[in-house]
């Protein structure tokens, strides 16, 4: 049994939803772990982001954003805006939609490894979905086990 933990950091260039293809970074962590066959758990430790897989291109990103709007519209008022102001003071957070989206999509995926390679189909990318409305650095944990 071997467990290797890698930490990856990502910053986004916009103050709204941003979807980053992190496959090359995760693959690099797998190679550096020297684990040949096993599993890699990719996890984000926050409540306004998610990890998933998709074919990452402009068209798919656009369509995913449109799908998210159906159940978590940007122009809605969220109770979190009020409760966060009550809890934390100042003006509160205005990222209710970000919390809903993160809870819907989840914080983790687990991908099998063979010969030190992530077993993803060609065109299937691991993505970090940062739903928050402010720019902030995100830490992604890659827990590699054999």
């Amino acid at each position, binding site marked *: 049994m071997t467990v290797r933990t890698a930490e990856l950091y990502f910053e986004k260039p916009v103050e709204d939803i941003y979807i980053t293809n992190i496959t090359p970074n995760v693959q690099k962590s797998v190679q550096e772990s020297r684990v040949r066959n096993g599993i890699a758990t990719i996890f984000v430790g926050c*409540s306004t982001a998610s990890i998933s897989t998709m074919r990452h291109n402009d068209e798919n990103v656009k369509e995913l954003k449109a799908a998210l709007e*159906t159940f978590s519209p940007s122009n809605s008022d969220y109770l*979190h805006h009020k409760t966060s102001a009550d809890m934390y003071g100042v003006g509160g957070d205005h990222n209710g939609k970000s919390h809903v989206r993160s809870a819907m999509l989840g914080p983790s995926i687990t991908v099998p490894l063979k010969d030190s390679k992530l077993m993803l189909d060609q065109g299937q990318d691991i993505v970090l979905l940062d739903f928050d409305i402010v720019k902030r650095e995100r830490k992604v944990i890659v827990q590699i086990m054999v």
Partner: protein
Amino acid sequence: MIRMKIKTVVLHYTKPTTEVFLTDVTRQLEHSIVDSKMGDGIAIVHTDCPNACITTMEYEPGTVHDLQEAFKKLNPPNGHNGHQGNNSNSTNGNGHDVRTTLIGTSITVPFKDNREMLGKWQKAVLVDFDTSTSEKRVIVQIMGE
């Protein structure tokens, strides 16, 4: 090479209402990891119920409410999508299959030095969509060294 260890903990939850109910299971997850005495590894948090889900979120009344509203948009209580409100195609007529499929039944939480790596405000949550208050099982499978 150190031999891999696996420990399974089964948790039981009964909700107090027939409405959609969210339960914070983080403390029991933490206890399960501590009791396993493993240093580093992963904890799979899974529910074996077809109308419940596991996810993570900031567990506070505002976000709980906002999420409930989003569930309604996914399949409205009076909508005509599948067996919602209609027993003919379902064994229980609670029609939350769309929600459970989208959210999923498990998460995997890494741990290091015997501590889960959840964020400061991030909690592991059982989302119970059942229209009955029947008990739900949450299975915590801990693997590591």
